[in-house]
């Protein structure tokens, strides 16, 4: 009995290698099948169609007057869209970049100078800075003021004072035409 069991699994010579090939093929098929079956389960954890549908939003920017700012929701986060005045643009570009905590030129943060688009989450600990409404405090640099721990951003959304380490992030966006921008 032990012998038959032994010869059933051990390979001996040509007969054995043909036997092993069959076992190998069946085993490989089974393993591939298991992997192919597992993939849909893992993929189900990826963003679903309704989440992906909101991964980009198109915003009509034609009603935003010069000097006006609006907030839109994108991927669950607030996005600031600022229609800058010429004065604000000039102010942003006259800053000495070497003095910035997070050195970035204003030109590198905008596609069209009059449209500043930022993710409105303070890079310190995640509060939403004030400055979107006309009545909001904007801090000393004309940009945004975070009430949680006092970070202040300038008219390019760069950190100037306070504990935040980085500038307000710029999301990926595209101007579809003069009136519409697609964020994301």
């Amino acid at each position, binding site marked *: 009995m032990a012998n038959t*069991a032994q010869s059933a*699994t051990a390979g001996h010579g040509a007969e054995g290698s043909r036997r092993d090939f069959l076992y190998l093929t069946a085993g490989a098929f*089974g393993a591939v099948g298991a992997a192919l079956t597992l993939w*849909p389960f893992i993929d*189900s954890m*990826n963003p*679903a*169609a309704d989440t992906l549908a909101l991964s980009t939003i198109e915003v009509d920017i034609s009603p935003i007057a010069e000097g006006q700012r609006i907030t839109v929701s994108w991927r669950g986060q607030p996005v600031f869209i600022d229609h800058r005045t010429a004065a604000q643009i000039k102010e942003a570009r006259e800053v000495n970049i070497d003095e910035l905590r997070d050195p970035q030129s204003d030109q590198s943060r905008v596609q069209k100078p009059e449209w500043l688009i930022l993710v409105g989450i303070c890079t310190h600990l995640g509060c939403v800075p004030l400055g979107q409404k006309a009545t909001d405090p904007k801090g000393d640099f004309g940009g945004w003021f975070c009430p949680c721990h006092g970070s202040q951003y300038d008219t390019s959304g760069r950190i100037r004072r306070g504990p935040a380490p980085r500038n307000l992030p710029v999301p990926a966006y595209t101007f579809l035409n003069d009136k519409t921008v697609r964020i994301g």
Partner: protein
Amino acid sequence: MATSSSSKFFSHPVVKWIEYRLPIFSFVDHSLGSQYPAPKNLSYWWNFGSLAGAMLSIMILSGIFLAMNYTPHAAMAFDSVERIMRDVNYGWLMRYIHMNGGSFFFIAVYIHLLRGFYYGSYKYPREVLWWLGVIILLLMMATAFMGYVLPWGQMSFWGATVITNLFSAIPLVGDSIVTLLWGGFAVDNPTLNRFFSLHYLLPFVIVGVVVAHIWALHIHGSNNPLGIDTKGPQDKIPFHPYYTVKDAFGLAVFLLIYAGFVFFAPNFFGEPDNYIQANPLSTPPHIVPEWYFLPYYAILRSIPDKLLGVIAMFSSILILFVLPWLDTSRVRSGRFRPVFRWFFALFVLDAFALGAVGAHPPEGWWLVVGRVATFWYFFHFIIIMPLLGWFERPLPLPASISEPVLGGARPAGAAVRSMEKN
């Protein structure tokens, strides 16, 4: 009986390091592997235990991923299931796997149970093994019942209402029990929420009972189609590779049939009414449970009294616990019991008849057939099984599994008596 390939495995230094600290590999080898001996004559009817185990794993896996997207609130449950079907990547696949998996789990378990009936697997010394199996069946029924409520369709809601209302038949405390179950004055959000919690919990309780079930099995080993004890190593073969390979083949065929339903007839076992959101103000014209509950539903409705109907329904499963004693035959396997085989076939026919009755309203001929079939169900267990044992003349049993030739046969009684002494 170690093979050359497994002794190579066990001499590997990494394996030895782990084995010294936790002998997990030799444990598996002894319980399922090349060191676990099984009768060499097991037929394909012995595949259904491992198939049931495979279905349990599939149900747990698909259930966990469904739960990542399901919302157990009455106002959002139906919508969340539709979101799974439409928006979640492969959500439709997981839903259909889980939905049809329930049916295939019961198919495997019912065949596994009928195998036990026919071959006397519940008899000495496997009574506790049988009890653990019946407990698994009861837990499966509770899990399936609660699971069906979760999509919050019309059948979900009204099936839950009808079945929970049954408990009001209990004298004195019935209504309080029903209120406790509901968490309110009708099936509503509290009921749904607790059913979700319990539906997630019970499968893991089932896993625990399955471990005990397999442990009990391994004490005396599997029964076999001849129903006689193994006499020595000549009657046995190692579980690995013989039955691992046979189980793998059986699993592939079972999955093929299962896939046929999941991909090409996913709503075959279902009810269209469950694609309508639950409406407490509108009862569907025909409330039907899932197919695997139909025989018990038929038994319930065949008895005009509410409390007696409930008792009959539960008794139809509880009676399985005493089957080892109701069956007085000294011979295990139906293969050597020529009269029993006819009654077994009749029993299976009776079960299908009860299932058909359960799908129809209890009127006219259906009610008559239902009552006859219910009577016969209990008559089979309570009267037929004991009488058969006493009066049936079994065929002569073979001497052993390895020598099935009748020349070496001993009288059936003597064989069984010596069997019981082991």
